[in-house]
């Protein structure tokens, strides 16, 4: 029984169905998402402490923030963290997923344990890592001492703290990438792999032409998600260093939080958040163009 209808009607009913499908998500996401975005923008145009009525000052916050060395540093720290974190977490996740994608005994347990850091709360992780990397009594320096390496400042050293946060972030974030990649890897048609090897493709070629394309959707998703996570990192900084030592780990969202809730400078904080949002927007538009080009050339 073929469904044959005039093209217009079909498109109309399709649009109707489409809207019906999209409506629940729309209502929740836009209803609860648009308002805050607009509210935040309005806040960024005001001098506000959230407690007393606000004053309009137009774009003055943005003017001041463009000259603020603390904010510039915060942006720098955030971009550095993101640039290091994102590629490493994706690569690490893929590598581990490939490692864990085999059927040997206990593989289920290995996979579960690799996921542990992602499940443990930020607070517990903060306590654990503060202990491990404590510069005088911590395990890390004890291990280094054993290898005759001089003790490091870690969280007391403003040149090391941010990189240390990248390491900890990687450790706790890679588990999620592993799970996602594993699920995608498992989904790859066994026949395709066998066909490829029958055709004489080596491991690398199989990976490049069979596996990698199949991982595209999840890779893109992970890239987007991890970039957003990295640009908006907060919890890790809050529980380990509070932006220190000497503001070396102050990232943009931490700066925002400080301004809003410690300095009673919420309008300024909103402006800072919007600058970050602008960066994100630029990045995503760039990605979109790249992908559209990519899709068109396929």
């Amino acid at each position, binding site marked *: 029984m073929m469904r044959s209808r005039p093209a217009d009607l079909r498109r109309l009913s399709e649009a109707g169905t489409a809207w019906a499908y999209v409506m629940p998500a729309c209502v929740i996401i836009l209803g609860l998402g648009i308002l805050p975005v607009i509210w935040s923008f309005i806040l960024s145009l005001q001098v*506000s402490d*959230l407690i007393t009525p606000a004053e309009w000052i137009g774009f003055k916050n943005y003017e001041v923030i463009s000259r603020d060395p603390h904010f510039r540093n915060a942006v720098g720290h955030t971009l550095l963290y993101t640039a290091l974190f994102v590629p490493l977490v994706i690569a690490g996740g893929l590598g581990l997923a490939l490692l864990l994608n085999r059927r040997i005994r206990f593989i289920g347990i290995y996979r579960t344990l690799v996921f542990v850091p992602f499940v443990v709360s930020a607070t517990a992780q903060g306590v654990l890592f503060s202990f491990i990397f404590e510069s005088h009594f911590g395990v890390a320096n004890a291990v280094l001492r054993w290898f005759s390496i001089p003790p490091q400042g870690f969280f007391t050293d403003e040149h090391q703290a941010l990189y240390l946060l990248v390491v900890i972030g990687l450790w706790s974030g890679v588990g999620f990438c592993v799970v996602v990649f594993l699920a995608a890897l498992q989904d790859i048609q066994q026949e395709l792999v066998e066909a490829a090897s029958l055709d004489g493709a080596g491991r690398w070629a199989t990976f490049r032409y069979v596996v990698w394309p199949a991982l595209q959707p999840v890779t893109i998703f992970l890239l987007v998600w991890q970039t957003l996570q990295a640009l908006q990192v907060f919890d890790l900084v809050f529980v380990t260093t509070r932006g*220190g030592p000497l503001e070396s780990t102050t990232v943009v969202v931490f700066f925002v939080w400080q301004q809003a809730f410690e300095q009673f400078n919420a309008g300024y904080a909103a402006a800072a958040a919007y600058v970050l949002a602008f960066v994100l927007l630029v990045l995503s538009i760039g990605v979109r163009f790249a992908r559209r080009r990519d899709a068109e050339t396929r």
Partner: protein
Amino acid sequence: MTARPASTGPTRRAFLRQGLGLATATGIGSLLSACGSDDDTTTGTTQDGNVTITMWHGQEDQGKETIDQIVTDFQAKNPKIKVEASSGGVLADSMLQKITTALSAGSYPDIAYIFGPDIANVSRSPKVANLQPYVTKPEVNWNDFYPAARDAVTVDGKVRGFPALVDNLCVAYNKKVFKDAGVPEPTAGWTWDQFVETARKLTNPGKGIFGTGWPAVGDEDCVWRIYPMIWDLGGAIVDASGKKVGFDNDSGLKALQTIHQLGAEKLVYPDTKPGSETMYQIFNSGKMGMVPTGPWQLPDFVDQKTDYGVVPLPSYSGNKVTIAGPDTWTVFDNGSARVKGAVTFLQFLTESTQDVKWATQAGSLPLRQSTANSTEWKQHVAKTAGLDVFSDALSYARTRPTIRTYPRLSQPLGQAIVKMLLNKGTPEDALRQAVQAANDALATG
């Protein structure tokens, strides 16, 4: 949409009703709100004059138990006032963030535990009650409260809450560490030079022992420790005009120099983990000789079975000087009936009989002079080593000013202190940068 006074409420509601197709949402909403508690915090008084007040006390464990007990006692005596006391979902540290959000949304409790340095900003809200008319009543006995406690809850001459807690800073020392190093225990009236010298003798890198410790996150616990030094040298936090800092001179410089000495010679353990817990753990493990601290830490020393002693803070001039960090029960305006109910409860809570319970059980110091003179308190002091030093220090402890711009001057000063602790830069540079940032903040008013 500007800031959120209650009058924009209905407009927002109307907008939501249309925009969200709220049939679904209200359906979900009423279903889900049934899953929660039935407490209604929006109406205050019922028909028969009963009042329900909510209190976010931010306490856990022992503090919570003490408050719960006091609430039960209060309700027995005042059946028309129901007190719903809970930690509010936060502990005292996170209370400010929650109250700020609550105030901006127009949904706030009647009483909340607000830190001293925060009340100046919080009370700028028109929703904070003015308790001036209540505290002049004789039954409150307002002047019985210690001056530090009274100052902490008074902003711009108006009283905004009741004192909740007082403490102050004295030096606790580990007797065993002193004995092992062969150093005589410190005594009252000692100087900062002697403090540094003692730290020098106690520090033993080979054994991993530090002379002293100092929080190095740059937060308030890091900063408030420098003020007694500044005050003793004749400086002030803010000068008379209120538009500039009062330590842009020798008082600030010398204080930072002392800290710099400690940091440069590695006599001090800089605690970079937020929460200031690590340095006490190190102290209790016998790896630190002495540490400035408050009475709240004594129960911990007792639990860890540390053999400790307490002496007052050292000074430069030989005068007695220390700082008190009082916290407040800030009262919010949810209608006059509820304000009155809240005041009645807080009056009860801070009366001598309850105050002594709070002080002895929850690890505070007496809020009132009459409490300090009571037998119960004296017995408690006799039982707890070192508590008498803290108790006596109440008479000469000073407090930070309750000004709105305080957080913005505290932060750069904190960074300056951290620089000294980590031995990065000179005291002159650190002071200059801190003063500049702080003056900028004060100038904006």
